[in-house]
């Protein structure tokens, strides 16, 4: 296999990726080479959103992006959503609202919702449902997740008012 060396900037920190096969996805490199398993691998075909990460300002499926194409970008994963030892509003809201069960969809949802609230801190129900419709959850039926988004949006409005 042809291998590459490149640098990825993840959660504000530069990581050297050595001897990587060019076909490796960003999800794979994050999880298996950089020790960042927060983004999840529920389908690895872009259908479930459990691998959602941010590349610059876009939320993408980490499984559909080749890691080697994400050089010179700011990559943010669930591990970088809050400073170490702290929680941001959406994370707090997920715990308070009971939006976490098995937790496998949680990192992807948090990255997606964080981005949604960044652009719209007063989303209506349908807007939220559409924004998270690419993130499958099998445990909750979404009720507590929607509640958590409302809670987090309120927290964010309060913080910015």
């Amino acid at each position, binding site marked *: *296999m042809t291998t590459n060396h490149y640098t990825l900037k993840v959660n504000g920190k530069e990581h050297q990726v050595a001897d990587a*096969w060019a*076909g490796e996805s960003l999800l794979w490199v994050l*999880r*298996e080479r950089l*020790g*960042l*398993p*927060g*983004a*999840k*691998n*529920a*389908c*690895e*075909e872009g*259908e*479930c959103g*459990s691998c959602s990460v941010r590349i610059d300002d876009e939320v993408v499926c980490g499984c559909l992006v080749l890691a080697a194409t994400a050089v010179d970008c700011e990559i943010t*994963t*669930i*591990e970088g*959503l*809050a400073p170490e030892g702290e*929680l941001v509003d959406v*994370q707090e809201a*997920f*715990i*308070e609202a*009971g939006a*976490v*069960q*098995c*937790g*496998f*969809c*949680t*990192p992807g949802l*948090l990255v997606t919702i964080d981005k949604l609230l960044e652009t719209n801190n007063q989303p209506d129900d*349908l807007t*939220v*449902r*559409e924004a*998270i*419709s*690419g*993130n*499958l*959850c*099998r*445990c*909750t*039926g*979404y*009720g*507590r*997740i*929607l*509640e958590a988004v409302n809670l987090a949006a309120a927290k964010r409005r309060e913080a910015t008012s």
Partner: protein
Amino acid sequence: MTDIQITSPVSAPRIGESAPRPDGVPKVTGTFTFSSDLWHNNMLWGGTLRSPHPSANIKSIDISGALAINGVSAVLTHTDVPGSLLYGLEHADQPVLAADVVRYEGESVAIVAADHPETVRRALAAIVVDYQVTAPLVDPEAAEQAEPIHPDGNLIRRLRLRHGDQNIQGEIQVEGTYEVGMQDQAFLGPESGLALPSEDGGVELFVSTQWLHSDRDQVAVCLGLPPEKVRFTLSGVGGAFGAREDLSLHAHLCLLALHTGRPVKMVYSREESFHGHVHRHPARMWYRHHADTDGNLLRVEARLILDGGAYASSSGAVISNATCFAAGPYLIPSADIDGAVVRTNNPPCGAMRGFGAVQTCVGHEAQMDKLAAALGMDPVELRLKNALKSGDKLLTGQTITGAAPVAEVIKSCVDHPSTLIPSDDMMSLPGGAGRTADPHHIVRGQAMAVGFKNLLFSEGFDDYSSAICHLVDGVATITCACAEVGQGFVTLAQQITREVLGVEEVILAPAATATVGSAGSTSASRQTWMSGGAVQKACEAVRQQLLERIADQHQVNLDDLVLVDGQIVSLSGNFSLDLATATTEPLEADIEYHHAPTYPVDENGQGDAHVSFAFAAHRAVVDVDPELGLVKVVELTTSQDVGRLLNPLQAVGQLEGGASQGVGLAVMEEVLVTEGRIRNASFTDYLIPTALDMPPVEIAAFIEQPEPGAPFGAKGIGEPPSISSTAAVVAALRDATKRELPRVPVRPTDIVQLEDDTP
């Protein structure tokens, strides 16, 4: 949204409060370790070669090409299995690796360990298997008469249930044939694990599962090792819903680690996951209901056939539930029910949330609506008139001694006002953003359904859980092998410990076979009762030891001492000691908790086979585009019999989540199998509800009637939400379309029905 009051606890929440999950912070920060996140120095990657044929004889397997690939450490086949080749949850009938025959598409044939998943894929492709393809047996109704496809035969289990006077005939009779498709559990965390060889020649496995000890016992036999040399530890579980009750990669990983002497990790792809675990049994069901002209149910006849697929798994228990609960939560004096589960070359079926009862609820509730129509009676009134209550007899002859608030769940559910807000946004229409529906042609339907099933294991199974409570310096540590799969047992274990011991801090030790006895399976809505009960008893034993010690040390009367809010005090008021001071010397209790005995059923299906039952009702509102066959479930309302609510917030999560799986089965979820082959093994083609598909779930009521014999009076609540939700949605679709819709999931073609067969 539901208007159930969720109170945030101030500190150290106990029973009845919405305690937060102890694993909440790691799960929202991405630091919680799921089984697919495991990693070890020097580890290899494992992979599985699966049969491309549903039925074939294996003439030869050539692994030389795979072994020659650089980076490949092991290629193993059935000849490398040192112990028993066969395993199984109820009957050992499934090969660890196929030897001379494959019986379903996806059956494991060979396993590989290599340095990179890509090397694994190339090695798997280089294994040459010479198959002699044979015609698959795919029709469950033909299975019993067909040539056996397994030495154990094609009938896995038949249960005949005869109850009451067999000559009763009702003046009003309704008949129907119903079908339920194959559902997938579709948990998000793929099957995965990491095995490590041990210095004593044994093996350690970190894995996501529902029942560690059963897995360990089954694998030890296949490895030819004593159970104590096979150590299984629970890793983070990304959902289960029944699909992890059977072994998947467990034995394979252990074989590879033992063979290579290195750690081996394996993770199934989503496609592989569809082939690598059992599904919900597809069912064909014929019913005839008899009633008098006043709407009193007199007799039910039913013929049920479930497709078990290639191997037995938990089919025996599934057909038992289907047969016992075939007619629903109604008092019926006479019944003749014949349930059979058969072997075919279709994918193996086994446990999924509410098994047996989910399928039959679709049938019995359709029949109740038909009967109401034949009687000219309101369907709710018909159900209330025949609703089971405590003291009534089931079709198995068993008297219900616990709570049976059937009328209460029905009434509170249908009386709950709808909170549906009309929306003219096209996203709210059937078909959604594609705007394929013409809003003026949308028809609305509404209906309800009720269902029930047994809690805990039945039919004489010695069902138990084990827990150890260790108390030192005022801190309790609980060790229990109960599989936390997302349901929140870890939260309850802390609440129960605080309740009994009055401690603030409760540490939960890892769930592992090496440190504690079996907790039994996280299934059958049983862990709140069984492992909750084990934790309660272990804490109570420690409390007793503590009070005895204090009475002895301080020369106070034992009967005078109580433990209240972290203080040991005497009722007479002259003695007080705080818990931390009293427990500088550790105390420990290791207990096994068994539920009340149950008994096998006799040749007529009669017997006290079950411990307890739980009931739920759902009301569904649907919008339908009758021209395009598109549907949208717009509201669900539910009431559930919970015994006693231990954690309101987690209970809401179970009711909402269970209902979403019911909605999925009603309108979208089916593993499509043609000639034994799965056609939609991906989330692209196997659709589960998204946030846009799922309606709000209104919780009309938690019916709290404490269950005698249950710890804290609480019933398990995981399964009932998935039972009547499907039936309610289908009934609402019938209301909207006026079609019979005898099959779930309801497909667009069933609604449009270009060839009209409206009854």
